[in-house]
C-alpha cells in the first residue's frame, strides 16, 4: 500500500552485495581511523556569549561550519575551539528563545577571541517559526537515522506510557499489554534488540517479556533520541535493532527557584494523575525533584463481548475486566555544574501495579467471579503484576583542552512480581502444598541488580572529532515463584570503541567506528519443586536448567557519511552489529502454560550478527520537505523461538515444543515523511512506513519474523490560528492513521485485518502571568473504532484495542525566584 512499499529483490544477490559492501567499509573504517593524527599546532578560537543585559549565557550550542566541531558555552558563557587550521569559518549559535547568530571568522596564525551578544526572539512575531533548532542541528550531524522528540511532543501526544507516546513516529511501534505497559519495536525489532538508555545508562528491566512494560516516567523525560537501525557500535550488544536515548531534562537556568504542576485526566480508563516538579539553582549547584502519580481503572473497548476462542466473554460496561493500575515515580537530580567540571546525581524510583485481563491469562481462558471483578473498575485482583525499578546514576564530565571526558556510573534494581491464583498445570500437585515457602499467589518473580560504568573521551582536533570509550556492566539475576521460565543468571559484559567524525569539506561529514565486546553469561541450575511422571512411570524432580557458562566475543564496525547542501541532505551508513544470546534463549526449559507452549532454549546458540545498510535522502524547500529513509538488513543467524510440530509430555507436560533456533533473515523497508505548509496557519504532514522480513533458512524458511508491523501511513493536518495575546501557540491537529492488513505471519500468529483510526490534538498556552499555562487536549480513536493491533500482546485472543479516549493535560509552571533573562521554562522547550 501507498508509495512507501519499496520493491526490492528478495533473493540472495542482495545479501552478497551487502556483504561485499561490508568488506569495503571495513577497509574504509580502518583508513579513516588510521590517518587521524592529532594536530596540536592549530590556532585557538574562543569567546564569550552574553544576553542583551550582558549576563553570560550558558548552554549555547556553538557550531563551526566547515568542521565537525561543536561546543557548548559554560556557566560563564565561555567557549573555545583549539587546533583549528587556518581558513574561513562561520560560527553559528543556537539557544532556545534566542535568535541564531552567525559570525564569519578568518583564521590565520593568531588566536581569535569573540564577544557575542544574543538578542531574544520577539515572541509575538515569531510564534509560528519554532525558534529552537537544536533538533535540526542534531539530526544533521547524527551518523544514523535519528528522530528527536522534545517534551512538547510528549505533552501533545501523551499516551499510556512513554513508548506508546513515541508510537506516532514513523518506524516506531510498540508491543503492549493493557493501557499502561508497552515496549518499543523499532522497524519491527524489539525486546532485547532495542537498547533504551536513561540518562546515559542502559535501562535494564525484563526486556524479553511481551507482557512487561518499560519502567520509565514520561513526565521526567527531556529530549528523546530514537536511532533507527543497528547501533551496537555505540551502545553494545542489544542495540542491534536500534536505540532510544531518553535524556534528562536540562538543568534549571541560573539563579532560579521554581517548579511546575502537571494534571492529567483520561476518559477511557478514568485515569487521573499528577506530576509535581520543584527545582532550584544558584550559580553552580542545582536540584530538580519530581513526583508523579497516576491511577487508572479498567480500560474500555468498543464491544460488549469478546471471544476467547469460542467462548463469549461479556464485558461489564465494555470494560476489560481487571486491567486497572497505579504508577508512582520519584526523582531527584542534583549536582554541580562548573565551567569545566560537571557532576550530576540522578536518583529515581518508579513503581507500578496493574492487573491482567481476568478472563484470560496469556492465551488460557479463565473462569472468573464476575461479581467480584465488576464490583469496582479500579480494583486490581488476580492475575496482576507489580514492578519496582530503582536507579542511582552519576554523570560527570570534565573539559580539558580539546578533550571532553565523560563518565556514567549506575546502579539499578528491577524487582518484578507476577501474581495469580494457583492452578495446577501438568504434573503440579492438585493442591498447593502448605509446606511451600513461595507464597501461593506468587507465580513468578524476577529480581535484577545491575551495575554499569561508561567512560568516554571526546577529542576535538582539526577536522576530526574522535570519541574513545569503554563500557562495562555486571548483572545479578535471581528468580522466585511457582512457575519457571528463565533460570537465575549472572552476566558480565565489557566493550571498547573508537569513533571518528571527520569533516571532509563544507558539505561532507564522514563517520567510522569500530568496537570490541566481551561477554560472559553464567546460568544457574533449576529443578522443579514437584515431581513429574517419566516414561517408565517413575516420579522425578526434573532439572529444568543446568549450570551453564558461556563467553562471547564480537568485533563490530560502522561507517557512513552525511552530505548536507542547502536544500538537499543525504545520509548513508553501513555496519555490522551483534547481540549476545540472553539467558532465556540459552536456558529456557519450561512450560509457559498460559501460552500452551513448552519453551526450550539452546545452550549452544552463537551471538546474533546483523549487517545493515541505511540511507536517508531529504529535500527541503520553503513550503515543503520530503524525506525518504530506506534500509536493508541481513542476519546470518537470527535467534527466534520456533514453534515445532512436536508435543513433549515429559518436560513439556503435553505442550507444543517451541525451540530456540537460528536462521538467516533478511529485512528491508523504510519510512517516508512529507511536509507541506499551505499557509502560515495550515500545514500537513504525511508519514509512512513499510517493513518486510523473510527467513531465508531453517524450519520457518519463507516465513516472516514474529511481530512484523503492517505497513501504515499517517496523514496529519494542523491549524495554528493567531489567537491574540492571552492564548498563544494554539494548535488544532488531526491525525488520520491508515494501517494495512498483515497477512505475513508465522506460527502462532493470526492474520490481522487493516484499520483506520482518527486521533485529534488541540492545545494552547495561556499567558495569564509571565509563565504560560500549557493546556493540551487529545482525542484518541475519535470514532471509537473496533480494531485489532497486530503487535499487541492480546492479539492472539482477539481482544480489540482501546476505544475513544479523551485526554486532558495541564501544565502550570511557577516561580519563587528567577533570573532577569527572558528564558524559557526548563523542560518545556
Amino acid at each position, binding site marked *: 500500500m501507498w508509495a512507501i512499499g*519499496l*520493491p*526490492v*529483490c*528478495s533473493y540472495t*544477490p*542482495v545479501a552478497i*552485495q551487502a556483504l*561485499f*559492501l561490508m568488506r*569495503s567499509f571495513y577497509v*574504509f573504517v580502518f583508513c579513516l581511523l588510521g590517518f587521524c593524527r592529532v594536530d596540536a599546532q592549530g590556532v585557538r578560537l574562543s569567546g564569550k556569549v552574553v544576553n542583551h543585559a550582558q549576563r553570560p549565557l550558558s548552554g549555547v550550542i556553538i557550531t563551526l561550519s566547515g568542521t565537525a566541531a561543536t561546543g557548548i558555552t559554560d556557566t560563564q558563557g565561555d567557549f573555545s575551539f583549539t587546533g583549528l587550521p587556518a581558513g574561513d569559518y562561520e560560527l553559528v549559535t543556537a539557544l532556545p528563545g534566542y535568535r541564531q547568530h552567525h559570525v564569519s571568522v578568518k583564521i590565520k596564525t593568531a588566536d581569535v577571541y569573540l564577544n557575542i551578544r544574543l538578542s531574544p526572539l520577539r515572541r509575538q512575531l515569531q510564534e509560528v517559526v519554532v525558534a529552537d533548532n537544536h533538533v535540526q542541528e542534531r539530526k544533521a550531524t547524527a551518523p544514523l537515522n535519528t528522530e528527536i522528540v522534545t517534551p512538547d511532543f510528549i505533552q501533545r501526544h501523551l499516551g499510556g506510557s512513554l513508548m506508546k507516546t513515541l508510537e506516532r513516529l514513523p518506524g516506531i511501534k510498540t508491543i503492549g499489554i493493557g493501557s499502561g505497559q508497552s515496549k518499543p519495536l523499532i522497524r519491527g525489532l524489539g525486546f532485547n534488540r532495542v537498547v533504551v538508555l536513561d540518562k546515559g545508562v542502559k535501562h535494564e528491566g525484563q526486556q524479553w517479556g511481551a507482557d512487561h512494560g518499560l519502567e520509565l516516567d514520561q513526565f521526567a523525560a527531556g529530549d528523546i533520541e530514537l536511532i533507527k537501525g543497528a547501533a551496537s557500535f555505540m551502545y553494545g550488544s542489544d542495540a542491534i535493532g536500534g536505540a532510544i536515548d531518553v535524556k534528562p531534562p536540562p538543568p534549571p537556568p541560573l539563579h532560579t527557584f521554581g517548579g511546575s504542576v502537571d494534571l492529567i485526566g483520561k476518559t477511557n480508563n478514568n485515569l487521573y494523575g499528577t506530576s509535581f516538579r520543584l527545582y532550584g539553582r544558584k550559580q553552580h549547584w542545582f536540584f530538580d525533584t519530581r513526583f508523579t502519580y497516576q491511577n487508572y481503572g479498567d480500560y474500555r473497548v468498543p464491544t460488549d463481548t469478546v471471544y*476467547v*476462542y*469460542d*467462548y*463469549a466473554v461479556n464485558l461489564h460496561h465494555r470494560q476489560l475486566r481487571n486491567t486497572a493500575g497505579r504508577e508512582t515515580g520519584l526523582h531527584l537530580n542534583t549536582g554541580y555544574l562548573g565551567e569545566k567540571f560537571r557532576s550530576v546525581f540522578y536518583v529515581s524510583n518508579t513503581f507500578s501495579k496493574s492487573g491482567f485481563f481476568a*478472563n484470560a491469562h496469556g492465551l488460557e*481462558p*479463565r*473462569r472468573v467471579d464476575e461479581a467480584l471483578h465488576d464490583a469496582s473498575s479500579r480494583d486490581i485482583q488476580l492475575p496482576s503484576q507489580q514492578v519496582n525499578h530503582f536507579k542511582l546514576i552519576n554523570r560527570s564530565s570534565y573539559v580539558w583542552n580539546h578533550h571532553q571526558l565523560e563518565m556514567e556510573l549506575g546502579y539499578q534494581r528491577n524487582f518484578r512480581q507476577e501474581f495469580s*491464583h494457583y*492452578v495446577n*498445570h*501438568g*504434573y503440579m500437585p*492438585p*493442591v498447593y502444598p502448605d509446606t511451600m515457602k513461595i507464597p501461593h499467589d506468587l507465580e513468578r518473580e524476577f529480581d535484577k541488580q545491575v551495575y554499569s560504568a561508561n567512560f568516554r573521551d571526546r577529542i576535538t582536533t582539526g577536522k576530526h572529532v574522535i570519541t574513545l570509550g569503554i563500557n562495562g556492566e555486571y548483572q545479578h539475576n535471581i528468580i522466585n515463584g511457582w512457575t519457571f521460565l528463565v533460570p537465575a543468571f549472572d552476566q558480565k559484559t565489557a566493550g571498547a570503541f573508537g569513533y571518528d567524525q571527520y569533516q571532509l569539506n563544507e558539505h561532507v561529514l564522514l563517520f567510522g567506528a569500530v568496537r570490541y565486546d566481551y561477554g560472559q553469561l553464567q546460568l544457574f541450575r533449576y529443578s522443579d519443586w514437584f515431581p513429574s*511422571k517419566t516414561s517408565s512411570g517413575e516420579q522425578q524432580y526434573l532439572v529444568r536448567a543446568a549450570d551453564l557458562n558461556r563467553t562471547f566475543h564480537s568485533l563490530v564496525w560502522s561507517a557512513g557519511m552525511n552530505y548536507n547542501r542547502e536544500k538537499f541532505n543525504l545520509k*548513508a551508513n553501513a555496519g555490522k552489529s551483534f547481540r549476545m544470546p540472553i539467558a532465556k534463549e540459552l536456558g529456557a526449559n519450561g512450560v509457559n502454560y498460559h501460552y*500452551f507452549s513448552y519453551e526450550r532454549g539452546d545452550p549452544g546458540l552463537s551471538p546474533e550478527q546483523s549487517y545493515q*545498510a541505511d*540511507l536517508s535522502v531529504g529535500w527541503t524547500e520553503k513550503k515543503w520537505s520530503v524525506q525518504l529513509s*530506506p534500509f*536493508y538488513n541481513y542476519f546470518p543467524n537470527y535467534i527466534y523461538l*520456533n*514453534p*515445532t*510440530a*512436536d*508435543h*513433549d*509430555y515429559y518436560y513439556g*507436560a*503435553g*505442550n*507444543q515444543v517451541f525451540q530456540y533456533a537460528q536462521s538467516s533473515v533478511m529485512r*528491508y523497508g523504510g519510512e517516508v515523511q512529507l511536509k507541506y505548509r499551505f499557509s502560515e496557519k495550515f500545514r500537513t504532514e504525511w508519514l509512512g512506513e513499510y517493513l518486510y522480513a*523473510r527467513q531465508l533458512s531453517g*524450519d*520457518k524458511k*519463507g*516465513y*516472516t519474523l514474529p511481530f512484523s508491523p503492517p505497513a501504515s501511513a499517517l496523514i496529519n493536518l494542523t491549524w495554528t490560528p493567531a489567537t491574540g495575546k492571552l492564548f498563544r501557540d494554539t494548535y488544532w491537529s488531526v491525525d488520520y492513521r491508515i494501517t494495512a492488513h498483515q*497477512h*505475513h*505471519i508465522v*506460527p*502462532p500468529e493470526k*492474520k490481522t485485518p487493516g484499520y483506520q483510526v482518527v486521533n485529534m490534538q488541540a492545545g494552547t498556552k495561556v499567558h495569564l502571568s509571565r509563565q504560560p499555562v500549557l493546556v493540551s487536549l487529545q482525542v484518541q480513536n475519535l470514532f471509537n473504532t473496533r480494531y485489532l493491533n497486530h503487535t499487541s500482546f492480546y492479539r492472539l485472543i482477539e481482544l480489540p484495542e482501546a476505544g475513544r479516549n479523551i485526554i486532558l493535560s495541564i501544565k502550570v509552571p511557577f516561580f519563587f525566584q528567577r533570573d532577569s533573562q527572558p528564558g524559557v521554562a526548563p523542560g518545556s522547550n
Partner: protein
Amino acid sequence: MKRITTSTLAALTILLFGQCGKDKNESVDTTYPEINITAADAFPKQCSVIKRGETIVFRAQLSDNVQLGSVSVDIHHNFDHHTHSTEVENCNLEPVKTPQSPFLMIKSFPIPAGLKTYQTAIEIPVPANVDAGDYHFMIRLTDKEGWQTIKGLSIKII
C-alpha cells in the same frame, strides 16, 4: 573510495528500483489444523460424561491443508473452576471442591508422516479410584509447520 561509491550506488539502485517479481511469501502455509468432533461417533464432546473404571476411546477427525504434526491429550480436574473450556456451550458445573486424588493424564501421540487427515481411536482407561467431578479434556493438535489448534472440552467423570 570510488569502489564504495559504486557499490553504494549499485545497492541503492537495487533497493529503489529492483523489481523482482511478485511476493513469494504467499506460498507459505498459514492455515491452522482442525479438530472436528461433530461426527456422531466422535468422543468426547463438550459436556460428555465418563464413568470411572471404564476405558473410553478418544475419537476425533484431525485435518490439515498440508500435513499434520502431532496430537496431545491432557485430562485434568477443574474442581476449582479456574480455567474455562474453549467452547460456546456452558456445562453445569458442580460446586467448587478440594481435589483428593484427581485423575491426571497427559500423553502425546505422533501422527504418521505425510497425512492430511487422521482419525484418532485412542483408548484411555479411567481408573476406578479417582475423584468424580468436573474435568477438562484438552486436545492440542499441530501441523508440520507448527500451527497449533487447541480444544478445551468440559467433561464430567462420574
